[in-house]
């Protein structure tokens, strides 16, 4: 006589109707199989007790709001999604600090002090991210130029589904990928064009004191050389090419291809050495972070890309014959690559593997 398999006996304990009539007839008549089944049931009862956990109450509506909420210190683990806004603010602050390292002595005349030609990862810790001062509150920021409303969010960027229109509007080559991954929808392509604009930042000692007191910190006084000094940051045009990946409709699911004139930073006479010392001595700039920024070999042409330490991997790559920086989040499902090509900077990023992102970058024509 063939006895019932262990798996069949185990399943019948939980799902009594899942057994065939033949097997059921056997079970009814077989003392040995019934004894095995009783033994399995005792084990299952014991395991159920062992795996008991305290009662749980969830609220999916609250959880969904949390998923979409801006970053809080406890949700730092998702820097590219939840913490994107804070991450960008920190990135801007670090880049601004790095800009000030690019010249020495007193710049008495209007000079160009920064233009990125290469990229380097600057690891930042959750502590850095939360402590970096909001340097935009240390002065007054004004925008001018054709694209100022687009850069300040006062107007939507020009949007088209036609690459030729985007080329004409931006004056850029607007390369498109020769191949897309299977889960990206070529029909969903959208080009967003941001016109050139100039951001002028005027340092203001009283504003810096106010900002620091709001953050319960005491910054060193702003030197008179810096108070009133101006930085000019010229940005754009930028073309952002977007493709839907998957169909969740969420903004975290898209593939983005960026083509932009590199931002150029100039000053009208900042005492750069003092500005550097001043910014790096702000409360919230950790010595480690300052050291990493200072360690950049060629700061005049290197754009530091802040990446959350332990949550992101980075590596140097070659894209279309040019040196680039590849980064991704630590779950391995989001990747991006930046590189400089002639007079533009390019980036490809999306919810894709690093290999796929590199393939797309190399296929741009």
């Amino acid at each position, binding site marked *: 006589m063939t006895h019932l398999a262990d798996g069949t006996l185990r399943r019948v304990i939980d799902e009594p109707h899942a057994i065939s009539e033949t097997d059921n007839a056997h079970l009814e008549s077989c003392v040995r199989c019934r004894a095995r089944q009783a033994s399995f049931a005792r084990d299952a009862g014991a395991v159920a007790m*062992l795996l008991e956990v305290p009662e749980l109450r969830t609220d999916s509506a609250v959880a969904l709001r949390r998923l979409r909420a801006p970053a809080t210190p406890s949700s730092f683990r998702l820097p590219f999604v939840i913490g994107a806004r804070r991450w960008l603010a920190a990135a801007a602050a670090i880049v601004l600090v790095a800009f000030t390292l690019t010249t020495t002595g007193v710049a008495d005349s209007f000079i160009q002090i920064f233009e990125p030609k290469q990229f380097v990862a600057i690891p930042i810790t959750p502590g850095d991210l939360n402590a970096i001062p909001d340097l935009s509150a240390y002065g007054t920021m004004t925008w001018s130029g054709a694209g100022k409303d687009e850069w300040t969010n006062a107007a939507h960027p020009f949007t088209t589904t036609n690459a030729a229109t985007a080329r004409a509007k931006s004056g850029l080559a607007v390369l498109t990928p020769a191949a897309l991954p299977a889960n990206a929808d070529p029909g969903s392509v959208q080009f967003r064009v941001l016109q050139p604009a100039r951001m002028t930042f005027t340092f203001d000692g009283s504003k810096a004191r106010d900002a620091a007191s709001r953050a319960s910190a005491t910054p060193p006084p702003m030197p008179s050389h810096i108070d009133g000094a101006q930085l000019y940051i010229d940005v754009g045009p930028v073309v952002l090419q977007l493709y839907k990946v998957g169909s969740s409709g969420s903004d975290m699911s898209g593939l983005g291809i960026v083509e932009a004139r590199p931002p150029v930073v100039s000053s009208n006479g900042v005492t750069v050495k003092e500005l550097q010392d001043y910014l790096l001595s702000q409360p919230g700039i950790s010595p480690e972070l300052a050291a990493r920024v200072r360690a950049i070999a060629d700061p005049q042409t290197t754009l530091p890309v802040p990446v959350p330490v332990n949550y992101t991997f980075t590596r140097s790559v070659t894209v279309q014959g040019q040196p680039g920086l590849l980064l991704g989040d630590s779950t391995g499902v989001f990747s991006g690559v930046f590189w400089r090509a002639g007079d533009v900077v390019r980036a490809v990023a999306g919810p894709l593997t690093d290999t796929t992102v590199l393939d797309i970058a190399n296929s741009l024509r």
Partner: protein
Amino acid sequence: MPLRRHNLVISGAPEAVNARALEATDSPGDRVPRTARALAKAAGLSAFDRLFASEYERVVRIANRVLADAAEAEDVAQEVFVSFSRSHPAEASYAAAWLHAAAAHRALNALRARKRRAIREERGAAPEPAIDPHEAAEAGERRRAVRQALRRLPERSASVLVLRYSGLSYAEVAEALGVGVGQIGTLLRRAEERLRKELES
């Protein structure tokens, strides 16, 4: 800087989802999510919102079965949904199975990786309903031992246990693990034996 990379490799990922196991079931564990999904659809929510409404609780329950810590389980559930939304359409037929497999996988990873869990459990992060302090201590001790045993079990054994004991039907467990539904009884029986042996040792 330290170069770190952790690729998510989910055993029983969607690619491996077994089509034979796609037959719908009417298990008790199924009813609540389906009702939530119907309500979400009636409210005009997006496909992702509907998926979230229908599966969030089960994803948290699976993670909590591993971690025995509600807050940590909700963190895992958030990661699972974000991960899913980055790479998969919300309407995918395998969505629920993927989420269940990922919840078990990530929670087991968290359990193995986080040494501080032992300290947390020592401090009683998961409060016991028992009033008797002796009973509470015993329950805490048992929970720690079970978590240690789960850490040591092969991933598939641990997954089949937590998925089944979180209320998934045999068909749902099979779909999540990418195996035939007929294999689940065998896998479950072996996993129960292994867990028992681990605890005895």
